[in-house]
């Protein structure tokens, strides 16, 4: 069974296209356009994987990751930082905030799915 994915992205086009591709690829997809919405969605949708943009309104992505990780039972959720910021220090910052991996934008959706599966497999191992 495919994992349930939460897409957190403030860019409407990116959110739409990626969600479309994931749904086309038979994934159950939930979306959020800011940090607060993301946290609410995590409570409501109980996703398996979160693609988390770091530069998002209201609450930034790092803080969102930290708050998710602060909750009990969140360790099963795979959080993948997916950001246009490509500086190494930002990658490190994301991993420290609780993200399991960091992927730089842009990344072809099929590559993104491959990467996600690898991360999931690694985590399940």
């Amino acid at each position, binding site marked *: 069974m495919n994992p349930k994915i939460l897409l957190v992205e403030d860019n409407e086009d*990116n959110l739409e*296209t990626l969600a*479309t591709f994931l749904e086309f690829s038979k994934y159950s997809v939930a979306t959020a356009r800011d940090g607060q919405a993301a946290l609410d969605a995590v409570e409501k949708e109980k996703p398996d994987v979160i693609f988390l943009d770091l530069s998002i309104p209201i609450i930034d992505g790092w803080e969102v990751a930290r708050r998710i990780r602060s909750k009990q039972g969140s360790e099963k959720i795979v959080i993948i930082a997916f950001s*246009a910021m*490509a500086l*190494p220090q930002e990658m490190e910052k994301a991993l420290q905030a609780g993200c399991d991996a960091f992927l730089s934008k842009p990344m072809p*959706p099929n590559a993104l799915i491959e*990467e996600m599966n690898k991360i999931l497999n690694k985590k399940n191992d």
Partner: protein
Amino acid sequence: MNDDSKKRRSFSIQRKLLVYLLIISLIPLLVMGLFSIYMSSKPLQQVAMTPLKNHVLSISSHIRQELYNVREDALYASRLPDLSRFVEYYDESSQSEQIRLLQDVVNDFQELITKRKKYHYISYINSHGHEVVRLNYSSGDPANVVLGEQLQNKSDKVFFKKTEELDFGEVYVSTVTLNEENGILDTPYTRVLYIATPVENIMRDKKGIIVIALRAEVLFKPVREWKMQEYPNAVSFITNQVGFYLAHSDSTKEWGTRQDLEMEWSLINDYPTEVSNPLLHDSEMTIIDVPQTDEIFVKIMSYPEFMNNKSFWVIVSSVPRSVVYARVNRFKQVLLGILLITALCTFCFAMMLSRQFTRPIKNLRNGASIISNGDLSHRIEVVSNDEIGDLTRDFNSMTAQLEELYQNLEQKVKERTERLQKALEDLRTKDKLLDESDRLKLDFLTNLSSELRTPLTSVTNYIALLSSEVYGNLADKQKDALKKAQRNLYHTFKWLDGIIRISSLSALKPDQIGALNCDTFNLVDIIISVLKTLQYALDEQRISVTFANFSETHPYLIVADKEKVDEIMASILNAIIHHNLCKNSSLTLTCKERIENKIQQYGLDAVVEFPDSVEDMDVDDFYRALKEPFIHSHSYFNITNLSTNVARGLVTLLGGEVIIKRISGSHTVTVTVYFKKGERA
């Protein structure tokens, strides 16, 4: 050097000078003075004894002279013409003539004894021992003529017998004896010496003797009466050959006195043998100074040649040793006092001289101290016209030049400082502007990257949606066009990554190198961390990674700024991955160690090995893409490798080295990065 040490040094010179002066003046003076005192002790003692010597010599001379006079008187009396006539004609003359002849002799004897006043009596004794003429003399004039029955027979007397044996002209001198009259000691006791000589007639027949009884006190008077000016309390005495005092300063001890008869005073009883023996037996004039007594003795033997027996006298004078040495010691003390005063004067003179000599030096030193403390306007007073004075003048001249130079220097330093401060302020201003410029540049590039990546992500996603035919089936040409769009997009991403990394690395300016937060850490940890972030790219390029000798038990500790090393390794490995256009190559990572310029280094070998199917030209291009800032070839067009080159520069700044090499003809390119080796604290 502080002031105290300078003072000590100056005093040291003064002290040394003082010591030298004392050595060359005071010590010889003291040595000579003390030697003189020592050497003069004995002569001084001799001199001190001279009055005693003279005293005993004078007494001896007096006795000799007196005895000689008496002898002459005896001989004179024996040859008197009146006595000759008396001897010759008395028996044959008439009574009146006899009286006249006798009277003539008496008159002659009267004249003699009265004139001398020191004879007890004078007598003519005939050859039968009967006194014929005798005159006694006590005191005052005239002498008492002994007449008739009072005349005695002296035939049994020693002096008569001894004189009878003598030839005419010879004189007998008895020892000191007590005078006897009619066989009884004369009272009060009268000590006399008998001086007698034979009397002859014309036919040279012996006709009796002339005897003069000399009062012993006449001889011994000087013993008691003569006083030495130098030693008024000196004791003098004369003893006979067995030690009885014939004369003594203390008259009670004299032989022949009533007390003496009871006490039997003698030299042997009064003095220890160490004194009495040499006094009685040494023949020469002797000074006796022995520790057994407190006195010093000077003695002389007296042998009157007209004494017919073998007796002799010893004339002695003695004084307490302390009295004799008091004079010597007084002289020594005076000499020592003069010596000490001279030494004191010499010391004072030496002190004065050393101060005089060191005063200009002290003056120079004090001045130099003031100048050394920074007062270059100070001038030292020239207090002497010798070499020190010349030195002081030269020093002042040098100080003046130094002051002038210092003032010029100060002015120059002030000017330069002002210029430097201005330049520094300009630099700071420019630096701030540069900082701001760098920050703006970085912000701009970051924003640019983000702003480009976000829409490009959408584009990528749309291409992916189209390619996956989510929005419907596509013609082959459309699919092909989408692939080309995808490839160009990919190339654009590479450019974007390069720009971001350059921005990140170049933000480290030279003045920040010194502020690098260097630490000791394991290089392997960094490499693993970096590879994690690059896993996607590795997978996409299908690059297999092999770790050759990574070990948890052997940490490769290096000393560097961890954050910068992270960026450097990310930049280099990113370049290795993204410039590798061939699929299925392998990347072998090996940690290694070397010593370069005596510095131990740890490094990472990243060996990229291409499959045999890859052409050499492509490997060359890869090699150049890593090594050169820009490359344009058949494989790469307008590719930039600025971030790798900036990283190489950073490694050098961290004390390491980046080596990129390719063995010609091989399919291998090696990138080696070295850092300084560290040790765990």
